[in-house]
């Protein structure tokens, strides 16, 4: 279901405690702090292990998130814009992570470039409400998606390396 390296990555991301969505304005600020703390720790872990792969930031309210993610393939770095909204039912439902520039380029996507998650993601998320946050969604959702889809898209010539 979840491979050992993902399990290890996950176990090093702090778990969250506050169950609050963006409609509960006061408690949401507390949850948002937890989200940022978990994300900062996750990025630090990635940097230490030489597997740094994304940056995220949000609007003031913490309801809209955007940033970059990248994937190394044959020593070349392929970078994509990433964005998502925090749904009103968060954290009961996970954010739907989107890579808009790949919309229409792969069948493993829903409209608007939302990535198609595995069968395992949602049950795993549901079992871990409210402990999982954005950092976990990135580690369990987007990271494995990139690892499978990007090499395939490169091989098919659908995406090509761009010098940055």
């Amino acid at each position: 279901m979840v491979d050992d390296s993902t399990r290890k990555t996950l176990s090093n991301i702090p778990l969250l405690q506050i169950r609050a969505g963006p409609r509960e304005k006061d408690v949401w600020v507390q949850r948002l702090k937890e989200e940022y703390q978990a994300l900062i720790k996750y990025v630090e872990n990635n940097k230490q292990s030489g597997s740094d792969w994304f940056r995220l930031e949000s609007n003031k309210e913490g309801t809209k998130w955007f940033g970059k993610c990248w994937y190394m393939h044959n020593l070349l770095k392929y970078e994509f814009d990433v964005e998502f909204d925090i749904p009103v039912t968060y954290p009961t439902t996970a954010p739907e992570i989107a890579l808009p520039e790949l919309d229409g380029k792969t069948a493993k996507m829903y409209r608007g470039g939302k990535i198609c998650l595995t069968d395992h993601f949602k049950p795993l998320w549901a079992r871990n409400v409210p402990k999982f946050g954005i950092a976990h969604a990135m580690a369990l959702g987007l990271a494995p998606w990139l690892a499978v889809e990007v090499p395939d898209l490169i091989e098919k010539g659908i995406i090509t390396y761009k010098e940055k």
Partner: protein
Amino acid sequence: MSNAIDELQAIIAELKTEVEEQRAVIRQSRDRIEHMSAEVVDSNPYSRLMALQRMNIVKNYERIRDKTVAIVGVGGVGSVTADMLTRCGIGKLILFDYDKVELANMNRLFFTPDQAGLSKVEAAARTLTFINPDVRIETHNYNITTIENFDHFLNTITGGGTVAGQPVDLVLSCVDNFEARMTINAACNEKCLNWFESGVSENAVSGHIQFLRPGDTACFACAPPLVVAENIDEKTLKREGVCAASLPTTMGITAGFLVQNALKYLLNFGEVSDYLGYNALNDFFPKMTLKPNPQCDDRHCLLRQQEFQARPKPVVIKEEPSADDEPLHASNDWGIELVAEDAPTEPEQTTSTAGGQGLRLAYEAPEKTSSVATPAPVDDTSLEDLMAQMKSM
């Protein structure tokens, strides 16, 4: 030069007649009808519906004109649902969808290739108004799950009824994802609105409808979603390279179930199903009732449950057993008993034991953990500092 002008004039004339012809086609839509007539003539669009009264199925069919239904998701199921309700002469339809019509949708019903590129709600509104100009159609082209649209969605379903300021009579969920279903669930629990959920599996061979009455039946957050067991070995199911398959048949059948039960509820006839499943592979239709979960995570669901418990229940009158039912044998040493073939083998299912009966939970329910054991670490860092720290990484 003059030749070219003549040629252009000829083209203009030709185009003019073409435009006129097109306009005539559009104009063929009939005028609005003030009252539903039961008169059986070819020109009466409601004669076969009003006949339901004469046949003693529906007491007062025309009440449908006072009803407002909100349809969330105007895709394979939602568009057909809207079509059916429009043909039935519903008073008002409110459509929500943020998607556009695509050629990839053409394996389903309702939309036509010339509508590709239009928003689904706009394309649907045009077709529906053409089919039945008596139906008032309101469209909202946005995603209900985001914070900026949710309040508008809430206000629309609570104040967009037939009489302004009144709630809609029924909400129908025809969406294709868990997030949107949970959003509708949250809204309907909060505002105590009855709604139907509908769904078709991603492999297109099963579907279901579920009636959710806040406090009375299970809400969508009470347990993991209940789905029809297809008895397909997960290992043989290939998902490579695709998100979802779909069939016009399964979608049409599901929409039919949905509207049939919506009509029964709105016009008060027959028995409304609480859960009705459909397995296309062996034409199996499981049916059941789901009780609410007293430990549901949605606090509005718990509130509605308390209100429901406090409300007096209608008394179900049971027939008194007649004298003939006296025991035939006074003693029964062997404990032999007769069980009617149609007697239910199990008491009403609860959400946690929803197995059997051809249904299964989409996944295992999360374990209920006791409240957080370790207190949250004391932290003085402000949110602004954290945001800045993340940004500078």
